[in-house]
């Protein structure tokens, strides 16, 4: 099964009509006929229409999307999974929502930094345009502000790590709660600061919001020992940290040694595949496809199968959506995020984040 978007919130009467007409439309649904006229009308999966693609920096764009049905809502800091049809293939990616959850027009936005050899981000930067249809999946994420928000806040971000924090800042501004907020943000140079103008405007407008921009090309990277200079009372603040893994790891350690780890909230963008202990790998037997292949301890089962030319189901490719699961018939697998080795006969394993640990058989 290929991953499907979230089930949209539609009036009960609409669901009733879809069900009532099933006798006329079987084996299809009313949806299958209506979506030919407007794909946003689907009651099976939530879709959205790109309203605008706006350049933030030379390498980042903000994509504003109008959901086809009422947006189920999100909390500032959460992310959403989106499906993009690119060159005929649907690709799923998770992006932080950068829009204020209570936006009056009901639209949502994401802000995406272009990865040159990527698939989705160059598509958004160069090809996506108003009218492009995307699929929206469920909102997820624990990196959120409590309600009411803490009195003293510290945001630390680097690069595109600013995206969930922007949503929080917009939310705080709307609620008139930008009273004691410090934001330390690191980017290569002034032009590379995503939301640079908006952050500077906030600083000008609110006495309670202080922004420090660390332009790493001239000032070097932010280091944990700089914290005392940048924000003397950092130990007292509830902190939200979002950025690349090395920055997070360094600051996390600093909080453990010198601060209160309870006050630190972290958003990791890349799952840490391969950073966990890797194993020996082994022989994978794809039982249904009648194919076998030998792989090292860092190659996910999904990737190994694709290299052999198998058409395997996949969604997020990062262990979230469970689209790629296969039933283990024998052997053990290693979770590439945690290094944990597990597996028993009949267990469903996510092939995108698991490598074989010795010989395995999987019903795919």
């Amino acid at each position: 099964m290929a991953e499907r978007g979230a089930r949209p919130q539609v009036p009960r009467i609409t669901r009733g009509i879809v069900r009532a007409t099933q006798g006329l439309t079987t084996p299809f649904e009313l949806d299958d006929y209506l979506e030919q006229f407007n794909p946003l009308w689907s009651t099976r999966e939530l879709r959205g229409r790109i309203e605008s693609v706006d350049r933030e920096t030379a390498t980042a764009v903000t994509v504003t999307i109008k959901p086809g049905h009422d947006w189920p809502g999100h909390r500032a800091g959460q992310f959403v999974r989106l499906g993009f049809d690119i060159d005929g293939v649907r690709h799923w990616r998770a992006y932080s929502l950068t829009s204020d959850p209570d936006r009056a027009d009901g639209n949502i936005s994401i802000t995406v930094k272009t990865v040159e050899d990527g698939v989705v981000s160059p598509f958004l930067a160069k090809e996506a345009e108003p009218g492009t249809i995307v699929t929206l999946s469920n909102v997820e994420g624990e990196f959120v502000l409590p309600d009411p928000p803490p009195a003293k806040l510290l945001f630390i971000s680097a690069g595109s790590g600013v995206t969930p924090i922007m949503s929080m800042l917009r939310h705080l501004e709307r609620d008139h709660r930008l009273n004691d907020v410090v934001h330390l943000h690191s980017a290569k140079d002034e032009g590379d600061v995503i939301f640079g103008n908006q952050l500077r405007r906030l600083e000008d407008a609110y006495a309670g919001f202080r922004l420090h921009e660390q332009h790493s090309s001239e000032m070097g990277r932010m280091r944990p020992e700089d914290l005392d200079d940048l924000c003397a009372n950092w130990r007292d603040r509830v902190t939200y940290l979002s950025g690349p893994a090395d920055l997070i790891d360094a600051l996390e350690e600093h909080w453990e040694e010198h601060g209160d780890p309870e006050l630190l909230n972290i958003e990791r963008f890349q799952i840490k595949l391969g950073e966990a202990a890797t194993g020996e790998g082994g022989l994978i037997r794809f039982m249904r496809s009648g194919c076998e292949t030998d792989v090292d301890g860092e190659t996910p089962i999904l990737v190994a199968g694709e290299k052999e030319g198998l058409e395997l189901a996949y969604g997020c490719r990062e262990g979230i959506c469970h689209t790629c699961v296969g039933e283990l018939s024998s052997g053990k697998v290693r979770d590439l995020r945690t290094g944990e080795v597990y597996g028993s006969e009949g267990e469903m394993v996510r092939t995108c984040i698991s490598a074989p640990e010795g010989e395995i058989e999987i019903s795919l």
Partner: protein
Amino acid sequence: MATEVRNDSELRSDREHPMGLSVDEVEAIGREFQELHDEVFADLGERDARYIHAIIALQRNLALAGRGMLLFSIFPPAWLAGTATLSVAKILENMEIGHNVMHGQWDWMNHPDIHSSSWDWDTASTSEAWKHSHNYIHHTFTNIRGKDKDLGYEIMRIDPEQPWHPAYLLQPLYNLLLMAFFEWGVALHDMDIEAVRAREKPWKQVWKDLKGISGKARRQFIKDYVAWPLLSGISAPTTLAANFTANIVRNVWAHSIIFCGHFPDQCHTFSEEECEDETLGETYIRQLIGAANIDGSPLFHVLSGNLGWQVEHHLFPDMPSTRYGEIGPRVREICERYGLPYNTGPLWQQLAMVHRTILRLALPGGKPRSKPSPYVREEDGGRRVAPSRR
């Protein structure tokens, strides 16, 4: 695709290959077809996706238009136009869309609806049972007597090497019935009655299949013969007749195209011994000479689900159907180079051969018909049919 097929040439050097090819040639043929497959799959993209989306949209709109016209089917012109439109919609859905989607031809798009794991089609068979009997049994054991249950569908003698039985005397009649009610025949065939009788199929599976078919049958029946007629008000009887007619038209068309795929005289059948421990190249050759194409216009190919390219479909069942016509000349070129036949012919000729075989083999006896000699390009004097007997 890396499948578990034997590649060690020594293993097979003692056996004669069906077309008098050497072991090395067979291996080279396997490689060439594999490369052709991989080349097309590396090229799939926007153009293909646009095609299937457009065909699905066309099919849905035709279905809506046909059903809409039939609400007024009491007027003969509306009846005629509505029935014709609905028939075409049903044909497109079953052949160019349903059959091909359920083969996994569009799975590469990673689309949740246009996917072999989620598609269900507008016919009596359940997708699950059909995928087993067709994708697995028929496409794996193609034309192997005793294993390919599509060879005569277990009710007809279609190859002289199948032993005769008095029941076959009536096969011209079964054939006509099957033609008219093909979708029901296919649904029953998917049950694999032979395996049920031989107690090879677990009862749990039989029960599950029966429940699946009866559920599907009920829904299909209610749609065409209760719901839409009721909605048509005073046109109810004529709408019912129209839906019945559209189903028959679709059935006759599907039956004709599908029977022309493997039953014309040109197609070879195989014994189980011949196919033991097949190499990749041998499998490709069996698929190649076990199938026959139908010549036709692009419109004909769309309406037949591109099964007029049966040879290409049997070489690469999971390749998007639109690519079959494109690779046709290259498959032919490979045939020419290795001295293999490339079976094809106009619809009337292929159909005549099929029905002649069904009539003749109802009676005992019968001999294999002569098979075509290697393919030769038209400009080199056309295809010659030599009286070479297998």
